C-alpha cells in the first residue's frame, strides 16, 4: 500500500525568522500593506510504501521528522497522510 505524506515544517514561535521578515517587507513595498505575520518554512511531499496501516505510517513520519527532516531545536512540524493505492 502507498501513502502520500505532506509535511509542513516551520520555525517555533519566538525564533527569529529573518527570511519571513524580508519577504513580508518585500510584499509591503510591492503595495500589499495588508500582509502580516509572514513566516517561511519547508514543505515536503513523499510516498511511503508499507503493508501496515495509517497509524504505523504516522509513527514512521514522526520518527523521520524528529531524526532528520525537522530540527527539533528550532522547528516544529505537522503532517497529513492519505492513501494513494
Amino acid at each position, binding site marked *: 500500500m502507498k501513502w502520500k505524506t505532506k509535511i509542513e515544517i516551520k*520555525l517555533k514561535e*519566538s*525564533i*527569529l*525568522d529573518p527570511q519571513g521578515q524580508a519577504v513580508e517587507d518585500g510584499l509591503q513595498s510591492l503595495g500589499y500593506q495588508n500582509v502580516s505575520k509572514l513566516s517561511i518554512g519547508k514543505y515536503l511531499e513523499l510516498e511511503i510504501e508499507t503493508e501496515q496501516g495509517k497509524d504505523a505510517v504516522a509513527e514512521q513520519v514522526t520518527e523521520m521528522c524528529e531524526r532528520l527532516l525537522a*530540527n527539533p*531545536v528550532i522547528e516544529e512540524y505537522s503532517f497529513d497522510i492519505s492513501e494513494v493505492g
Partner: protein
Amino acid sequence: MAHNQETVWEKEGLTAEEYQMIVARLGRKPNYTELGMFGVMWSEHCSYKNSKLILKKFPTEGKRVLQGPGENAGIIDIGDNQAISFKIESHNHPSAIEPYQGAATGVGGIIRDIFTMGARPIASLNSLRFGNLNNNHVKYLFKEVVAGIAGYGNSIGIPTVGGEVNFAAAYQGNPLVNAMSVGLMEHDDIATGTASGKGNPVMVVGAATGRDGIQGASFASDELTDESAEDRPAVQVGDPFMEKLLLEASLELIKSGVLVGIQDMGAAGLISSSSEMAGRGGAGIEMEMSKVPCREEGMTPYEMLLSESQERMLVVPRKGKEKLVEKIFAKYGLHAAVIGKVTADGMIRVLHDGEIIAEVPAKALADDAPVYQRDSSRPAYLTEIEKLDINKLIEANPAAKNYNQVLLKLLASANIASKKWVYEQYDQQVQNNTLVLPGSDAAVLRIKGKNKGLALTTDCNGRYCYLNPKVGGRIAVAEAARNIVCSGGEPLAITDGLNFGNPMDPEVFWQFEEAAQGISEACLELETPVTGGNVSFYNESPDGAIYPTPIIGMVGLIRDLQDVTTHDFKDAGDQIILLGETKEELGGTEYLKEILGEEKGSIPEINLKYEKRVQQTCLTAIRKGFVKSAHDCSEGGLAVALAESTFRKELGIKINLPDSDISKVAELFGETQSRIIITTEKENLDNIQNIACKNEIAMTVLGTVIPEKLFIIDGLIKLDLEEMKKQWQNAIPAEMES
C-alpha cells in the same frame, strides 16, 4: 522562606556569598529584575571573575598597541595612519545545541566587535574542534558548523581566509567553535564603547528585540549536560543580511563624527552594553524600556534587558544628533530609537512606562564583580602519562616502522588531511584582497593602495596542552608566529581564545594557569603582545573536560608584497633546506596517536630564544629574496611537512637525511619545534648558510626538488606522489559525503 530565597539567586547562577555582596553594594535587597542583571553581569562570561587574575599577567604592551584588552577588540598600528582591529571569540555551547545557528551567530558577534571599533572587517578565521570524525553526530556537528560559518560570512561579504579544524575524542561532547575577525581602519576612526556627557541620548540601533537567548551568558557559564538541550535559552538565529546593513550604517555613523561611543549588544544584551559603556565613561544611563523596538508582543522589561537578539548596537551620539543617526540608519532600513540618556550619577536606571524598576550602580555591575583565585593542583593523570615507553611500543608493533604505510596513513588522518572540504565552502576572496588563500601556512591579504599586507593565522595543539599546558601554550604562540614568518610576515600581536573545562576543578584551573603562563612567556620572547581575547570555561560533558585549548590568533605585517611566500615547492632543481634541528621527540605526536593509538608522552620541548632565531633566519632570508617556499614543520613531522609542500605543483623530492643518533621514526615523524623547511636556488645556499650562522641556528641541506612525481627519502620512503595526494585530498570528503 529561606529555601525560596536560595533558589532565587541560584536561578541566576549566583552563590549565596555573591548574593550577600549584592545586598551590601546596594544597601538593600535587589528586586527580581536587578538580581537578573547581576546574574548575567557577574557570570563568568561577562565578568571574567575566575580568570581575571590570571589574564592580568599577559604582556599587553608594545609599540604598536593602540588599544589593549578591555575594549570590544584590540587595535594595533600598521603604519601609514592605518591600524588593525582583531579579536577571537568562542561560541561553543550554542554550537553544541544548534550547530548551524551557533556557529553563524558566533561569526556575527565577533564581526560586530570589530566594526564597533570603527574598523571595516576584511577577514575572518575560525578554529574548530570536534570529536573523532567516524561518529555520526560529530559529522553532523562538523557539517552544520562549517555551513553556519559559511552561511553568515559569505552573505555578509567578508572573506573567510583561514583557520584550523582538529578532531579528538576529548571534544566529543563539547565541540569548540572559535571565530576571529580582523578589520582595517584609519587611526582617526577609532571608536570606543564609552558613554559619557550628561544628557547625551542613548539609542538602540539595528534589529528589533525578541526573546532570543535570554540568559545565554549564564548558559555559557555552565557545563553541558543531557538536560542542556531542554532548558536552553531560545536559540538565536543569525541574520547576516541585517548585519551587513548594520555594518555599513555603523561605519557611516562613525565617519560622521557625531559619536561619543558605540557598543555591540552581545551576551547579556542591553544590560551588559549599557553598564559597560557607562562604567567605562564613569557615567550613568537612564533608559525607558517601553521605547525599545520589540519583535514580539508582551515582552517584559526583564526580557528586554537580557535579550540576546543579534545584530543590534547601543550608541551614544552627541546631544542634538539623534536625527542624523536616524537618517543614516533609515537609509539602510534599520531602527534607531532613543531609549534614554546619559546621566552623571553613575547609576543604571531602568524605567518602564515612567516607573523605576531597577536602579543599580553601573560599576557594581560591570567593574566590581567579584574576582576569585581558584584552587589549583597538578592533575593526577600527568604522572600516568609520562610513564610511556615509546621505543618499546614501536618495537612491539611491526607496522610502526613501515614508513611508506605510516606516511600514507598520516596523510589520510583527519587532523593532517586537506581541509579543502571546509574552506571551499567559504568565500575566501570577496573584497579582492586575498593573496594567499587557505591551504598555506598563513593567509595573506594585501592592503589596497599600499605595497604591504597582512598575514593571519590561528594555531593551537590541544593534545600538547593536555600533556603539558605550559609548554603547549608556548608552542601555540610559537607555531602561530612561525606560520606568519613562513608567509613573509613579521609577527605583531595576538588575540587568544582560551577554552577550558570547569574552573572550580583545581586540575582544570591548573591547566589554565599553566597555559596562560606559557603563552605569556612566548609572547614576551617573540614580542607579540596580547591585545584581547576570550575565555570560555565549563567546556565539559559527562565524559569530562575537553583538552585545554588556548587558541592563538595572530596578525603579522608583510612590509613589502615581494616578501609573500607560500609553502609549496616551486621548481625542480630547488634545494630543500631544514632550518633548526631534529631531536628524538615522539611524545604527543600525530604519529603516536594515529599509528600506535596513544595520546601520551612528553611533548616536544621548545627553547623560545632558539625559536626566535630560527624565525629571524627565515624572515631575513625571505626579505633578501633567497627563499622560494617556506613551510612550518609541525603536526606529522618532517615527512608530512615535505609531503604537503609537494602537492600543489606535483613536484617530487629526493631527500638524503644526514647521519645522526636519532631514530628514523623520530627523524621522519617526530614533532620537534623550531623547524622550518625552505627551498632556494642552488646559488643562494651560501647566502642562507651565512644568515643561519649569524643567528646561530642549525641548517641542513636535505635534498632536491625533482620533476618526477616521486617522493623519496633515503631508503626509508619511496612513494608515488599521486597516491599520496589522493589519500590526503580524499580523506575528509570520503568521510563526509558517504
